[in-house]
């Protein structure tokens, strides 16, 4: 039995620069932190060769006969993609019970589906007895969403979830580099205390918004310019945090939100603008709608003394607060018995060794 959990993340700046069409030409740069809200995957061995998938988030259950690999299609397409990706590692022959649950609903812009992809990758690798590095877990999680599901999304969420912590993440043709922000523990705690999250109750798919953004980038130079400015603001945010100017960081969040609204018409809505204005009037220095925008959570930087007023203003507008702290562990195997759930015949072992050789030498991420 294997239990794995992977954190969701809040992205402070640089969102949109993690898409290949941008970072291949101009280098992507984001700053984000994982938070203590998790996507959890439980994998139990079966002896009858069947594959069962249960998702608490989508309230779905599906079962497949021995020897039948589920085609990668809705519903439950993400766990099916993960099973397809690891099919040759013996999961298909032994069978598996997969149970998926998230603390943050999908489609709310905290990267919960990418956290789930990360948790699934780690869980199935652990289940099959394959050891992967953190960056390999992140890359495979990206591949599940991008190559298998065809989502037009970036790579920042999977890396943020796999590594955990408060990081800058850089994207280029040389690879992905994760660097923890060198903050004093008390600065980090002070920032943690000043960040607030409120659920707007709106769920949306980042895919449609991001593909519109990608199309825009090709045809409209001003979208490219907005992405350049977003990247520079993300760099400025890091500078503010490094010198412990937290209020300055909060004001940059506000500037960044104004830029993000230029990217795509669906990023905001009148209701969201009203909530944002109300929080600003109540003392929030900056904030944004999480993820690719269009709904989900309102992330705010609020000085401690203004927090009660902001809470009142947003509650009056029907928003619910979600408590959290920063996570520093990233994806973790919470529990694992009988490590190799797949019987280790010489044949399978031989194949794994060759497969692992093909995984080497292609990642440049730095670990903590």
């Amino acid at each position, binding site marked *: 039995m294997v239990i794995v959990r992977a954190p969701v993340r809040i992205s402070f700046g640089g969102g949109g620069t993690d898409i*290949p*069409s941008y970072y*291949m*030409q101009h280098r992507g740069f984001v700053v984000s932190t994982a938070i203590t809200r998790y996507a959890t995957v439980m994998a139990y061995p079966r002896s009858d060769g069947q594959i069962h998938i249960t998702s608490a988030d989508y309230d779905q259950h599906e079962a497949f006969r021995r020897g039948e*690999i589920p085609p*990668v299609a809705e519903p439950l397409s993400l766990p099916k993609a993960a099973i*397809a*990706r*690891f*099919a*040759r590692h013996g999961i*298909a022959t032994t069978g598996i019970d997969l149970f998926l649950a998230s603390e943050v609903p999908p489609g709310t812009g905290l990267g919960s589906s990418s956290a789930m992809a990360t948790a699934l990758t780690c869980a199935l690798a652990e289940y099959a007895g394959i050891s992967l590095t953190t960056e*390999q877990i992140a*890359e495979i999680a990206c*591949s599940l969403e*991008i*190559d*298998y*599901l*065809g989502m037009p999304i970036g790579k920042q969420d999977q890396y943020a979830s796999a590594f955990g912590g408060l990081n800058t993440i850089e994207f*280029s*043709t*040389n*690879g992905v580099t994760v660097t923890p922000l060198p903050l004093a523990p008390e600065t980090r705690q002070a920032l943690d205390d000043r960040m607030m999250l409120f659920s707007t109750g709106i769920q949306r798919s980042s895919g449609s918004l991001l593909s519109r953004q990608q199309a825009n980038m090709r045809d409209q130079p001003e979208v490219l310019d907005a992405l350049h400015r977003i990247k520079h603001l993300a760099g400025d945010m890091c500078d503010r945090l490094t010198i412990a100017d937290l209020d300055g960081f909060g004001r940059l969040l506000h500037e960044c939100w104004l830029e993000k609204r230029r990217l795509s018409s669906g990023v905001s809505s009148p209701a969201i603008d009203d909530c944002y204005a109300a929080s600003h009037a109540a003392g929030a220095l900056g904030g944004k709608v999480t993820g690719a925008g269009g709904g989900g959570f309102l992330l705010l930087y609020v000085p401690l003394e203004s927090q009660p007023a902001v809470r009142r203003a947003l509650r009056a507008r029907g928003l619910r607060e979600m408590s959290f702290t920063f996570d520093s562990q990233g994806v973790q195997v919470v529990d694992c018995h009988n490590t190799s759930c797949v019987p280790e015949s010489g*044949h399978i072992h031989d*194949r*794994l060794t*060759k*497969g692992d050789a*093909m*995984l*080497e*030498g*292609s*990642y440049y991420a730095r670990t903590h």
Partner: protein
Amino acid sequence: MREHIETYWRDFATITNSIPYAAVTQVAETILECQRNDGTIFVLGNGGSAATASHFACDLAKGTQTPGHRPFRVMPLTDNVPLLTAWGNDSSYERIFAEQLATLVRDRDVVVLISASGNSPNVLHAAAVARERNATTIAWTGESGGKLGLMSDITVRIPLASIEQVEDAHLIIAHSICVALRCERQRTAFNDVLVPAAYSNLATVDLAISDEV
């Protein structure tokens, strides 16, 4: 002997479970879009992947021809042996594809780069030239994608154990894309780009010549 052969075929049967169909579909759509923009598709690779590059170029050029549609402009960079050996001899093996691309590739073109490791230096050099020219880069790789996966707009990673299986999968991907493109064109025949009169005349001329012979 027979045991190894049977094992290979049995493993082969599981390949279809692991193919990233969304990425393959994106490749087919990108090729179709490239043709609409009057772009050229370049294909390249080393060893078995060179053979796949030639094979794919052949099938894409000929096997997808459909009445009512302009054929694909496709060119393998693996088949001009004099040019390949000239660059290899006078410059370096790493430049054999890059130098060919440098004289040909434009921003509306697509470059299909085939490398199981994803780290073949001459393929990476070609990817760099394609990116400099703002062409769309498509990589077909093995499990990790290697450096090539990081330099490409679309990467088709094949999570299979052996080089041979990955190469088998690449060839099947080539065939599946050609068949899909042909079906799509037959479905939309005469709704899309009409064939310029010159193409149908050519067909008549060909027939006339063969009649004489």
